[in-house]
């Protein structure tokens, strides 16, 4: 998940901090986007439209557990693929 690559040296200590800070901001934005998409996607799939009671049913709870686990798995795999492709791209040219 973290895209913090090798530390880029900069002339001033403030510059190095800025690079790291920008990376951290990007990572936080990525995580926020991931979380929001996961919530809306799993809600669309698992939670019915008819609100008969305030609590989640057992079926909805199980569905949400599975949905979040799958989403995390897929996110990890896609991230690995992207990183390997990026590394291969950097190595080739």
């Amino acid at each position, binding site marked *: 998940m973290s895209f913090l690559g090798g530390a880029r040296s900069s002339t001033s200590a403030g510059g190095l901090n800025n690079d790291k800070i920008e990376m951290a901001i990007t990572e*936080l934005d990525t995580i926020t986007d991931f979380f*929001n998409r996961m919530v809306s996607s799993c809600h669309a799939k698992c939670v019915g439209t008819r609100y*008969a009671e305030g609590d989640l*049913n*057992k*079926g*909805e*709870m199980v569905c949400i557990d599975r949905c979040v686990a799958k989403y995390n798995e897929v996110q990890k795999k896609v991230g690995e693929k992207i990183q390997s492709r990026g590394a291969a791209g950097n190595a080739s040219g």
Partner: protein
Amino acid sequence: MNGSNFPGLVPLFPDGKEPLPQGVPEDERDAYNQMKKTERFMTMASESCGFKTVLAGGGGFAIGAFFSLMSASFAYEDPLVRQQHATLKTTQKAREVFREMGRGMWSSGKGFGKVGALFAGIECVIESYRAKNDIYNSVASGFLAGGILARNSGPKAAFGGGMAFAAFSAAIDMFLRRETPDED
């Protein structure tokens, strides 16, 4: 920027620095976390299939015992039973009456308890497997519970009992899931 009042922002905080609710001072953080953990465990336990089975079994036992209690008072009106107890003294008669009442309550409660526990347990398992909440869980669970309860009477009787229980539980569930009018 990170706060519980910004919708859509992920509530990210450094470890050990999550915000405590209004009235909790900082030095009670450990106790608060411990309480939260216990609360989460109790919620998880009460939503588990085993707990629901036990609860339904207990409820079934109570209902069976109550029905048997009501019917025992009518059963004592039977003249044959009265004649059997005619020769005993009052205290012995009373003890016999209560003993029979207790036996009837126990057996009837056991029967109803079995029904309730079977139905609730199977329905919970089916719902956990399907990860969906609709009426087919009740129907399938009713069929299986009815079949299991009638397993000693041969295959046709078991099938018939299963279908009857499935229809009954489908009717009850349709009633429970009906569209109630808006209360505006």
